[in-house]
């Protein structure tokens, strides 16, 4: 288990090179991919998330840790597919049409991936139709939308309405986030939850998709 702890620590330090090396070593030593993911990468990202929330570290540290996490995940992914290991769930995420701000959305994607969810990131300026198409194609469990501009927030309601229209509302949960949003706004447009940050988004999605927890 020391190897996994070391892996987690290198991830927390944003050391992509060592994370890749140790992930490779763990695989070579025969550790199951899921064990490496949970005990090394996810464990490390969880510490990073907590420290970020407590303002002990800031955005650059999280971005570096995420790069390190991806270095490890890239090696594990083919094995997970081969072993037919299901992720904790699938989330389609994007910044809504008209909005080019993506730092918040990227953070949410990082935290969700760091918690073992599969994230399909549609980028920014995503049209309602694109959200729906991706949710259908990917058989997503959750749609996550971000808006930083008060002027683009109304697009979120359009997506919720389209999800209903496409008769996906039964199986797709909808979370929203962004600086100008609130619980009230999420309720008003018919979303399932407002998430105030990436870690909160993880909490919400875990609550919605408890099957792997």
């Amino acid at each position, binding site marked *: 288990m020391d190897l996994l702890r070391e892996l987690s620590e290198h991830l927390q330090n944003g050391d992509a090179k060592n994370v890749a090396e140790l992930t490779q070593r763990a695989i070579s030593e025969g550790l199951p991919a899921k064990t490496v993911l949970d005990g090394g990468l996810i464990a490390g990202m969880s510490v990073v998330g907590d420290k970020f929330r407590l303002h002990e570290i800031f*955005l650059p540290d999280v971005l570096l840790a995420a790069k390190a996490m991806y270095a490890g995940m890239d090696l594990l992914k083919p094995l997970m597919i081969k072993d037919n290991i299901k992720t904790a769930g699938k989330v389609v995420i994007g910044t809504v049409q008209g909005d080019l701000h993506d730092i918040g959305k990227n953070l949410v994607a990082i935290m969700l991936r760091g918690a073992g969810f599969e994230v399909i990131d549609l980028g920014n*300026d995503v049209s309602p139709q694109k959200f729906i198409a991706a949710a259908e194609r990917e058989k997503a469990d959750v749609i996550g939308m971000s808006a930083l501009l*008060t002027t683009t927030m109304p697009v979120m309601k359009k997506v919720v309405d389209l999800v209903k229209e496409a008769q996906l509302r039964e199986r797709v949960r909808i979370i929203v986030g962004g600086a100008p949003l*609130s619980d009230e706004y999420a309720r008003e447009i018919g979303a399932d939850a407002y998430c105030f940050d990436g870690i909160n988004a993880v909490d919400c999605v875990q609550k919605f998709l408890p099957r792997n927890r």
Partner: protein
Amino acid sequence: MTPFHERLKQPGVILGDGALGTMLFQRGLSPGDCPERLNIEAPEILEEIARLYLDAGAEIIQTNTFGGSPLKLASYSLDNRTEEINGRAVRALRNAVGDKAYIFASCGPCGKLLEPYGDSSAEEIFESFRRQLRTIIGEGVDAICVETMTDLAEATLAVQAARSISTTIPICATMTFDSTPKGFRTVMGTSIEQAARGLAAAGADVIGSNCGNGIVNMVQIAAEFRKFTSLPIIIQSNAGIPVLKEGAVVYPETAEFMAEKSKELFKIGVKIIGGCCGTTPEHTAALRKVVSGTVLC
């Protein structure tokens, strides 16, 4: 008109204008459109807004070039029109205000993150700012305002880019802070002490803060800057955090509230006071009353 660097040495608070984005949205800018596109397509809108702020008593008018760096313009495929967009922005304001106000060139974040946590090199970002600022300085603005920065490294590159083009042009540099349990920090973790020292070292002449959570926090931020710098301080506050009222976005701080609270900024010795998101010519007019009624500092 007295050159701006001379004006800085004269007594009295200098009053800047208020929000531009807020005014542009009121005039039909669609969310997701490039605000700087208006410089080439409808400069008369910028002239109109400039006159409103001038009439309200602003001594400084800022250009519509916040996102005018080619890296930022590239998100709208407008980077090949960088010179035209930035040049027209300055000329529109000169048309509108002549020499009745100082023209400050706004220079906001490039929208890319620096290596190693991001993917853009320092050289790439420096060159992007340099290209924008070369045009702007060539057009004859009175000062550069590097603003709303959250990464000190990026702010430093912007200030250095301006300095590399002109050794004499006054440069203001502001960063945007949140209140955290660890004190005021930018999203990227920069503290006020780090900002004050870093921006001064980069070559800024006036330093401070803009945007943010409202005037009450700004008073504390200004006091903190005062501890770490002897340079003139600039504060441009949002009119609070926007709230939704019956589907419409409202900035809660009234002109009177901001003007009253701004008196505390005078006490701290803030040299330039203006407004950011949510402030209007009404706020500028209210600030003008208290600025003019203040004992010279």
